[in-house]
């Protein structure tokens, strides 16, 4: 049987695309993400592309709206005829197009969302999720790691969790519960707050009154600062761990001036900036627009492109079609230049399973504003749940 | 020669495609009562609205003591001293009687003057004083009409425009309104009054105009018009009275 190339592939070019929110309230995530992705592709193309092909990238704004994301994805697959979707973005879009991706069989590498539906121990061809390759940590996995850290590294027995009522918060909670159930003698006190809530004092008071040893702040972005500031305001003074999404200087800066050493805020990470990964960071920073030099979203966009290109490289001179690409992705673990390894073999679709730990710390002092910038300093390197609990 | 308080020349007004006023000339001497008569839809209210600036003239001029005002804003015109008791009363429904009257005196700076005006209006319409804390929307039709007239008087206007002031008022009150109008005109206020009740109006007016579908068809001193057979036929019917 003679193999033919899949759609979007010519002798000189391979077309990929994605749909992301680059307008509206989430543009501050979508914008840098796309920039990072494009920067990596440009870097690869400038170096001659892969197997003689340049990678062409198209993307479209869907405003974080499900049906717009669906229409956009259809346009990518049916009209633009992309070879692959790379860095498909946002819960609504990914949720609304999950069926479509499975049915059309188009490979999708990296999802910029942590929703639980992506998590699969054994993806199959029949089920259709065989062609989906999540890279980012999935919140459920991370929730488990958080509990492992609390117990393994901080010797906590009673853990408080303040979670937002969005996908991040809920999935983190679900993961945490799973892990607590797997351990013995550990209790979990839960408090829900609304995502984007202006006032979380009731939840914080409850946690304070419960007298916990350690706190998981299971919330991404906006609400994390509200929670930590409230913890400081009420002098709860227990150490806190939060999700990888918040482990960016911008978020540390949000609260570092407020905690004033009362307690420490830790964060998981799956991209490490330590000495071993310095080369990767240097490369990134030399290629990216200066304003995104330390932007976590831009870095993840870069990584999304990286994972796709790795797959492409492995197909190399073989016929570039979907089957070969999927086989190539599964063929061996792929190492993240910023740390961690993802292994897609045997239908494993778990996202990143290893995380490091860092701590928010005072960075440079701005003399005029009298405010410190926040930074994250590495405390522990990438570890799996098993090794943390050991 | 008396001073001309208000002078309208070649005024035209349109509502979209309809030309409601088709070029009229009209003037009022200071301290006189000018009646504006005409059938339903003749354009009487439109004329008053245009004077106050509520409706824009498509052409023509309006002068107030020699000063052109047809390009001015409604509130600017009001501040000059032109007050109107508009058609349909237009009281401030959710404000009390007292607040309504106070708004009437919005352009008056002098507190004493405002107080005096309050007394005067309450003197004319004692029922308003009784009801001063009542919300205007719950007043009876006639009471609202009194309020609208009282409100216009609150500003001590130099020119007072009355659009069917007797509408919905009991005969006794109509008589007293006519007296009031006469009285304030004698104090020097110029009054333009639009009325359906031609006979009664002509009795107090100094001069009268008759409007017909946007055109002036008759004018003259009221004392003459009241005996004009054409006018009698058109507006007074067989109801002619002495």
């Amino acid at each position: 049987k003679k193999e033919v190339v899949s759609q979007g592939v010519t002798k000189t070019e391979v077309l990929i695309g994605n749909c992301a929110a680059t307008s509206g309230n989430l543009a501050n995530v979508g914008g840098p993400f796309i920039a990072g992705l494009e920067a990596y592709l440009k870097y690869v193309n400038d170096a001659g592309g892969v197997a003689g092909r340049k990678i062409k990238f198209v993307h479209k704004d869907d405003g974080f709206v499900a049906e717009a994301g669906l229409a956009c994805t259809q346009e990518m697959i049916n009209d633009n005829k992309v070879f692959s979707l790379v860095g498909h973005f946002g819960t609504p879009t990914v949720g609304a197009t999950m069926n479509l991706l499975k049915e059309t069989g188009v490979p999708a590498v990296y999802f910029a969302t942590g929703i639980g539906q992506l998590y699969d121990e054994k993806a199959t061809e029949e089920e259709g999720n065989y062609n989906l390759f999540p890279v980012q940590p999935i919140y459920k996995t991370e929730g488990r790691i958080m509990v492992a850290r609390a117990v393994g590294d901080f010797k906590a027995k009673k853990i408080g969790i303040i979670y937002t009522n969005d996908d991040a918060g809920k999935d983190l909670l679900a993961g945490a519960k799973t892990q607590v159930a797997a351990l013995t003698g550990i209790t979990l006190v839960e408090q829900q707050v609304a995502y984007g809530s202006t006032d979380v004092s009731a939840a914080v008071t409850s946690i304070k009154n419960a007298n916990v040893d350690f706190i998981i702040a299971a919330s991404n972005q906006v609400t994390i600062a509200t929670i930590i500031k409230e913890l400081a305001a009420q002098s709860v003074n227990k150490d806190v761990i939060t999700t990888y999404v918040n482990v960016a200087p911008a978020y540390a800066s949000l609260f570092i001036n407020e905690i004033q050493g009362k307690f420490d805020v830790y964060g998981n990470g799956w991209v490490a900036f330590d000495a071993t990964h310095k080369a990767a960071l240097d490369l990134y920073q030399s290629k990216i627009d200066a304003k995104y030099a330390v932007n976590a979203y831009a870095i993840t966009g870069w990584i999304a492109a990286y994972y796709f290109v790795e797959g492409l490289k492995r197909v190399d001179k073989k016929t570039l079609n979907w089957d070969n690409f999927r086989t190539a992705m599964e063929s061996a673990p792929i190492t993240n230049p910023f740390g961690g390894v993802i292994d897609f073999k045997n239908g494993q679709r778990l996202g990143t399973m290893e995380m490091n730990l860092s701590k928010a710390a005072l960075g440079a002092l701005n003399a005029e504003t009298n405010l410190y910038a926040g930074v994250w300093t590495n405390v522990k390197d990438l570890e799996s749940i098993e090794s943390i609990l050991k | 020669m008396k001073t001309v308080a208000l002078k309208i020349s070649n005024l035209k007004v349109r509502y979209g495609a309809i030309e409601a006023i088709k070029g009229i000339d009209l003037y009022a001497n200071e301290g006189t009562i000018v009646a504006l008569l005409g059938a339903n839809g003749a354009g009487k209210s439109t004329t008053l609205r245009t004077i106050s600036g509520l409706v824009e003239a498509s052409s023509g001029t309006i002068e107030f003591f020699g000063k052109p005002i047809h390009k001015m804003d409604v509130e600017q015109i009001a501040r000059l001293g032109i007050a109107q008791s508009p058609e349909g009363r237009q009281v401030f429904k959710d404000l009390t009687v007292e607040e309504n009257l106070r708004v009437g005196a919005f352009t008056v700076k002098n507190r004493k003057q405002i107080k005096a005006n309050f007394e005067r209006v309450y003197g004319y319409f004692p029922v308003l004083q009784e009801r001063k804390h009542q919300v205007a929307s719950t007043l009876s039709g006639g009471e609202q009409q009194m309020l609208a007239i009282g409100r216009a008087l609150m500003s001590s206007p130099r020119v007072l425009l009355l659009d069917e002031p007797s509408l919905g008022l009991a005969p006794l009150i109509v008589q007293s309104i006519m007296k009031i109008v006469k009285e304030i005109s004698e104090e020097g206020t110029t009054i333009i009054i639009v009325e359906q009740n031609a006979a009664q109006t002509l009795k107090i007016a100094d001069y009268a105009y008759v409007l017909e579908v946007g055109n002036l068809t008759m004018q003259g001193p009221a004392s003459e018009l009241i005996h004009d057979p054409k006018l009698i036929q058109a507006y007074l019917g067989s109801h002619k009275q002495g």
Partner: protein
Amino acid sequence: MDELQNKTVLSIQDLSISFGGIKAVDHLSFDVDEGEIFGLIGPNGAGKTTVFNCITQFYKPNHGSIRFKSKQGKTIELTTHKVHEVIGYGLVRTFQNVELIKELSILDNVLIGGHIDFKTSFIGQAFNTKKSKAEEALYRQEAIEILTFLGIADRKDWLVYGQPYGILKKIELARSLMCKPKLIILDEPAAGLNDLETLDFAKVIRQIRQRYNCSILLVEHDMRLVMDVCDRICAINFGKFLAVGTPGQIQKSPTVQAAYLGTENPA
């Protein structure tokens, strides 16, 4: 509840209502007979509109009874009914401050008056059945006839917005005629009409009585009209009964003169 006497169509007994401290209507009683044109007069704020509002149930009286002999021939205690039920018995009203729908054509406004008689169900209308179409056409025809009768049929497709006051009053009247009423109550129908138009209007009122074989209860401050068309008149003041009688009697009544007409008696 007592049945109404042969010729009485509306009987108000001992009606009282007050707002806060104000007694707007105070133990008022009067009867209106079949086929009668009955006037209700009184100074401003005497409570005339309030009486109308009580009859049509916009206000629930504090006290008293309002009985009405319905189109169906039964005596109805109106105070036990809801506002929208009143018209079904053949009692319809107009408003002192015109209540019309400005964005609709005159014809459509009049058609609203036919609401109560419209038989086709929602479903029938949804599917635009033959019956629905036929009924709609029938009422349209009727509305046009009424407009012709009142002399404003030429304007039927104009919007109500921007129409002169006199026309508005006529549209309201036309609307109230759509239900073939037994008793029409009119609140200052001639306000805003000039002397000549008022004269015409008197004719119209008589014609309505003839055409619809109904009674008319009216409030009006134009004494020439009232004295001209009314069979009987009831005068009230401060919500209280003053006098009832023929126009001649009322005109001569010194109490009514003092409270309302003044000595300078017109007409």
